[in-house]
């Protein structure tokens, strides 16, 4: 049986890519964010996951308004990063895991999540930078195979926090029923509070972000009770990317404990946050094997 060993979440702002390219990780501006990855690197070196299922929002690279999927699952053997117009380096291609993708697709649709399937799918900074942050020395040889899953954060109506939680739970059920022996980490990217547009641009809400960082570990269903209007009021118009964290957390079906977390304002225009969770199967799940 496959084994979901943990969940990981991080902010994904594009300027992280610029900071990596310029070697600014240990400068005063960037070090509070990049230092948060030291315990993540230790955990990854120890646990050695084989697969990363990455839940994120596309920012207008793979999906456009001509056809905008609410939820989409990549179903390819390779995913390419590409120019997004923001001058950050394009990262080497990421290996996919098409068999696991199709297992997820079968299971999610059977579970009444009628997702869009993508055999051609460009992965933007919100997928690529978290992998680069996890594996800074990987070069072109990424140590994990990947499955990208996107949630629409561009065009309202967006799915609710509750719906994204349920999606995560369905992803968790699918991964728990995968017959392979791979060790899997579920990754959620984005957030926390930020707003790029309008006269409220630059809005950051540290108190709400810290509440989210606490609740996502101990009481994630509390976060599913916010409407999207309430989430945008509290976290800014792009702060709804929290939905990717909520879906990640929903996919962890075992006993969940925090390995490490960090929070720093600002990372670009954003409340920067990193969270690593361990997921251990519940006793009844072990007994059923």
């Amino acid at each position: 049986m496959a084994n979901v060993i943990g969940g990981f979440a991080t902010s994904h702002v594009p300027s992280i890519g610029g900071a990596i390219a310029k070697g600014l990780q240990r400068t005063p501006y960037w070090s509070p964010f990049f230092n948060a990855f030291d315990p993540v690197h230790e955990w990854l070196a120890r646990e050695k996951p084989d697969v990363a299922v990455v839940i994120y929002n596309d920012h207008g690279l793979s999906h456009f308004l001509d056809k905008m999927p609410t939820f989409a699952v990549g179903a390819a053997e390779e995913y390419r990063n590409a120019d997004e117009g923001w001058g950050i380096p394009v990262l080497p291609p990421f290996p996919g895991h098409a068999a696991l993708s199709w297992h997820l697709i079968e299971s999610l649709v059977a579970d009444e999540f009628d997702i869009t399937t993508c055999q051609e799918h460009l992965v933007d900074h919100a997928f690529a930078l978290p992998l680069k942050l996890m594996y800074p020395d990987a070069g072109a040889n990424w140590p994990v195979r990947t499955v990208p899953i996107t949630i629409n954060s561009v065009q309202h109506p967006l799915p609710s926090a509750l719906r994204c939680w349920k999606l995560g739970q369905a992803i968790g059920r699918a991964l728990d029923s995968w017959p392979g022996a791979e060790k899997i980490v579920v990754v959620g990217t984005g957030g926390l509070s930020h707003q790029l547009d309008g006269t409220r641009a630059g809005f950051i809400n540290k108190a709400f972000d810290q509440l989210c960082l606490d609740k996502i570990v101990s009481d994630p269903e509390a976060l599913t009770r916010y409407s999207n209007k309430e989430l945008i009021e509290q976290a800014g118009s792009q702060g709804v990317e929290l939905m990717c964290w909520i879906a990640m957390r929903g996919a962890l079906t075992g006993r969940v404990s925090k390995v490490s977390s960090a929070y720093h304002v600002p990372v670009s225009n954003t409340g920067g946050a990193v969270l690593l969770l361990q997921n251990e199967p519940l006793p009844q799940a072990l007994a059923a094997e």
Partner: protein
Amino acid sequence: MSQFTIPGTPIFGGDEARRGYALNKMCFSFNDGANREAFRADEEGYMERYGLTDAQRQAIRARNVLALIAAGGNVYYLAKFARIFGLSVQDIGAQQTGMSLDAFKDHLVAQGN
């Protein structure tokens, strides 16, 4: 109509997606470096090719983010346009809030205290 309103906070819903389609499609094309160059070489011709409205063309000429949003632009696509001129999300934040760039950056830092 969007489903809800929040002061100072654009909500990009069906109405905006329809009104802003040509503008956003043009900005989506700026993922490609050759298209960015083609726009730089002939802004008016490029806007004509995408069929932008007069209000959208005026807002593009003025590099005015709030006017672009009012004309149906979505910030994720507009950021690709802004970047052609080297404008970061701090630059466009300063422009939209009427702050200087330094004041906007100070505002970001202050919210961490």
